[in-house]
């Protein structure tokens, strides 16, 4: 299997001026949500065994988790309240006693997150209009499409396509863009911040793609 091509997203000028090292990267992958294969579930279980409780506390000293914590601070998020994705996963591992398997997309994202500490999100590629990027929300914009899409405060940092915001930066993905069982293709994206090496980002995207590919092959 060859590694999928990693695409580069855009960063709005105002955001890039403040955070010049911020980047958005993505890959395309096949298939929608479904029950994870036993192999993927087993990989998560093995990962649970490798994880120790003290890691949840000491993790913030490691370079990549620290980079995300520092970025959270610099955009006005308290990482002890709005946990960085890897710390949230670590906390859930402690509370539940393991990384619980849910469905193949969420499990592949979790696998890559725990392996690399780089957070990933998946959206339905068919619902997108053009490349993804990071910008500030404009007045009157909503998260996703549809009558029930929540309003966004102006200035909120969002991940958007050419048409509209599809996710809050490090937050919720629009319900209208979440992958479902009938989704034929996914766009898996990540946000790289200052202090996160290129290698980690590539590894995260490829780990996720490989897990999704293998899982698709075993059905």
């Amino acid at each position: 299997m060859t590694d999928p091509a990693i695409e580069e997203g855009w960063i709005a000028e105002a955001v890039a001026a403040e955070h010049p090292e911020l980047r958005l990267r993505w890959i395309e992958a096949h298939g929608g949500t479904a029950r994870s294969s036993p192999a993927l579930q087993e990989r998560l279980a093995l990962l649970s065994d490798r994880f120790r409780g003290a890691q949840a506390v000491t993790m913030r000293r490691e370079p990549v988790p620290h980079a995300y914590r520092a970025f959270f601070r610099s955009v006005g998020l308290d990482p002890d309240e709005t946990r960085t994705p890897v710390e949230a996963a670590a906390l859930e591992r402690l509370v539940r006693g393991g990384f619980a398997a849910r469905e193949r997309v969420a499990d592949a994202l979790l696998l890559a997150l725990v392996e690399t500490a780089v957070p990933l999100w998946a959206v339905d590629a068919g619902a997108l209009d053009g490349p993804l990027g990071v910008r500030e929300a404009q007045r009157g914009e909503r998260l996703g499409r549809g009558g029930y899409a929540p309003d966004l405060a102006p200035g909120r940092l969002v991940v958007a396509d050419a048409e509209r915001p599809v996710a809050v930066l490090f937050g919720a993905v629009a319900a209208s863009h979440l992958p479902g069982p009938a989704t034929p293709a996914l766009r898996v994206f990540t946000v790289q911040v200052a202090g996160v090496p290129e290698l980690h980002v590539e590894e995260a995207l490829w780990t996720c793609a490989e897990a999704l590919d293998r899982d698709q092959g075993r059905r």
Partner: protein
Amino acid sequence: MALVDQHRVPSRPEPGAAPGTTPLDERDARRALRAQIARLERELGEALVAAFPFAAVDVRVPAPVAGPRLLGLGELEALRDALAERLAGARAQVARTGEAQARNRALLEDMLLEPGRHKFARLPNRALGEGGCGVWEVRPRLGLIGMLMGWWHVKLSSGCPLARA
């Protein structure tokens, strides 16, 4: 306050300075503040880990806004100052814990040298900055006889108590 001063940058014009701060100056100041915030965040993490698991250090600094957005100069300054203040508090707490542990280690040495001067004194391992549930205790040898004869010694209880239903 010294810690705050140590992390301070000239992020706004000094009073009396010539007006004419350009957006570029402000952007540089914001960048410097973000670098300071990242450093303070790291040091706060170090303080938390240093204290773990023997002291609960409060490292929470509430977010200035709801949801992610680009912060202004004032917000970054306030956040930097709040982090610096929290770090100073966390370091003081770590230092206090360290001092208490050093005092307890000295006490344990004294208990071992002269148990008769510390009758029934108890020191849990945690108070010494060590793991486990062991407790050092000065007890009389042979129970009542030891008490009457002044035969004292130090015992280390081992293991954690059994879980109770």
